[in-house]
């Protein structure tokens, strides 16, 4: 049983990261029908921006701020204006394919300008253990979980409790009516892109000390988060969160109790089952759009 506790904590910590990334999938889908297949690479890039800032001589805290700001500029503003806006009018599929191309471009660019090798990345929390109920739990895992939960709560509060959030919801649910009642729809959409960029930068900061900074590290993550978003419900932020945590835990339990050889298969089988029996996702609602 002690083993089960460790597995749950590790699984929840990994799942929290998936959740942060998966939330971005649903946000962009809701407001602009963008399926961003470069989402994994969006998590990989901020770590390299921070490393580049540190190589240029910036202290770690400044590198973090610069990294987050640059991410919001590149992965939020520039992504929307230079890729999503021009491709949008051609439909959802061409846009999805364009984001796949972007993913390849980002990976190759990092490989070219940085290195093909993995680099260590400093951790914002000390690498020690704390004792919870007599179990040694890594501070890193706990902090990942806590920060991810705080970020998600903050986002939910923003969406449900503030006028800004209500405007974003209106822009997502019915852009035409929202426009008529005076909601600046374009600005709301841009805001979701900036929020997504902030979340991926945060995810990057949290996981790179564990995953290591490497140009290809977005592949696994993007895939896991995409599965999480579908399992939870692509049109619900809370669905993406539940999906992320579930996939993280499932992966670890499968490795421990089914077979280490089939660990990667279990979430996939689960995904197929969800698509077959509950295509809108566990918490999603059919044919409805809400942030």
């Amino acid at each position, binding site marked *: 049983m002690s*083993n089960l506790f460790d597995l749950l904590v*590790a699984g929840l910590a*990994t799942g929290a990261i998936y959740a942060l990334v998966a939330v971005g999938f649903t946000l962009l889908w809701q407001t602009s029908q963008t399926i961003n297949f470069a989402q994994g690479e969006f998590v990989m890039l901020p770590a390299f921006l921070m490393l580049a800032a540190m190589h240029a001589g910036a202290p770690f805290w400044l590198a973090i701020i610069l990294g987050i700001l640059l991410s919001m500029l590149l992965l939020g503003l520039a992504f929307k204006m230079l890729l999503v806006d021009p491709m949008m009018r051609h439909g959802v599929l061409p846009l999805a394919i364009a984001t796949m191309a972007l993913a390849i471009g980002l990976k190759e660019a990092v490989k070219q300008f940085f290195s093909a090798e*993995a680099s260590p990345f400093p951790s914002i929390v000390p690498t020690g253990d704390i004792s919870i109920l007599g179990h040694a739990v890594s501070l890193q895992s706990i902090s990942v979980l806590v920060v991810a939960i705080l970020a998600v709560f903050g986002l939910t509060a923003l969406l449900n409790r503030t006028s800004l959030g209500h405007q974003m919801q209106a822009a997502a649910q019915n852009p035409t009516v929202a426009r008529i009642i005076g909601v600046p729809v374009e600005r709301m959409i841009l805001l979701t892109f900036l929020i997504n960029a902030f979340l991926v930068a945060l995810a990057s900061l949290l996981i790179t000390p564990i995953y290591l900074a490497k140009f290809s590290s977005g592949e696994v993550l993007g895939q896991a988060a995409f599965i999480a978003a579908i399992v939870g419900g692509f049109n619900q932020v809370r669905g993406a969160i539940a999906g992320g945590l579930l996939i993280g835990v499932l*992966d*670890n339990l499968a490795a*421990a109790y089914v077979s*280490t050889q089939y660990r990667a298969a279990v979430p996939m089988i689960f995904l197929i089952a969800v698509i077959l029996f509950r295509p809108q996702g566990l918490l999603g609602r059919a044919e409805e759009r809400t942030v």
Partner: protein
Amino acid sequence: MKSTLLAGALLAFATATSAHAQAIKLADVAELSGGGATVGTNWKNGIDLAIEEINAKGGVLGRKLEVTHADSQSNPGVARAQVQKALDAEPYVLLGPGYSGSVKVTAPLAAEAGIAQIMGGEAAELTQAGNKFLFRTSFGQQSSMPKVAKYIHDDMKAKTVAVVWVNNDFGRGGRDVVVKELDRLGSKVVADLSTEAGQVDFAADVGKIKAANPDAVFVYVNEEESARILKELKRQGVTAPLMGETTLIGQKVIELAGDAANGARGHVGLTTDAPVDLIKAFRDKFAKKYNYVPDHNGLKGYLAVYMVKATTEKMGKVDSKAFADALHGLTIKAADEPGILMDVTFSDTGDIDRQSFLVEVVEGKQVVKQVLPKVK
């Protein structure tokens, strides 16, 4: 008439001179990106360093060496296409790839073309298929794993062992030999865990090791995963001694795993920390040129080029077809060819015999604990 003859003679002379001065072309296909990027980049840099040195001293038999590098993306399918492309350009010798899976699918192509292939793969089966053109730069698993098993049984005195391996050609090959050897020696394998390349979370795997409570853990996964599993083993407080191969205690692993690498031991065919003067000199040259300390793959790439040089000079001619025959059974002494770093003998199957090392990570540094002599 006279002028035509003169022109003809001049032309013939010019052709002969240019043929004489023509560079010897080598082709390298390596893991420059993807999961094996660490392997391939070190290998490539080792090759470039050796070629630069050799050319600065006048080349091989008076001819310069030239190399083209191609990226296999750590993918056997891509490696095959790149090797085919490289062979179409008719190189003197083919260098790489470094991953066993990629070597396995490309070796038949080189053999068919009759071009010798000097590679970095370590899977046992590679040199057991009767290929007459394939050569190793390091020990195959059939040479190294028995030494590993013997150390676990004799020196670590482990009666029970957990074996963690990566589920690919490299990992499975090593796992098969070591499990067989441990069994033969009387050490029991109490946990046999396969992991995925690129795996991030090792909590479940380490949990299983902990539950099995072995006397020793044998870890046989690639460098980045080694770093991650070392961290997780430390976090979950596994105190059983860790034994592995070069991939567990390489420079990159130490850099990535930090403190968690301390205490890990490994059998190393090649290490830049070997107490051998020529290797120390190589390490300094490499670090000066590339600003980092190479791992064993840097040594392998470097040695591959010097194998080409020594064999060609032994033959006294640049003959691509006769190269493989000349290298079989050849012993190259470091006293005669310092670039080969340590005395080495090549068998008829392309396997090597050379001294090796038992290394432990102490305070972030590889420390050689034992030197294991050449078998013959």
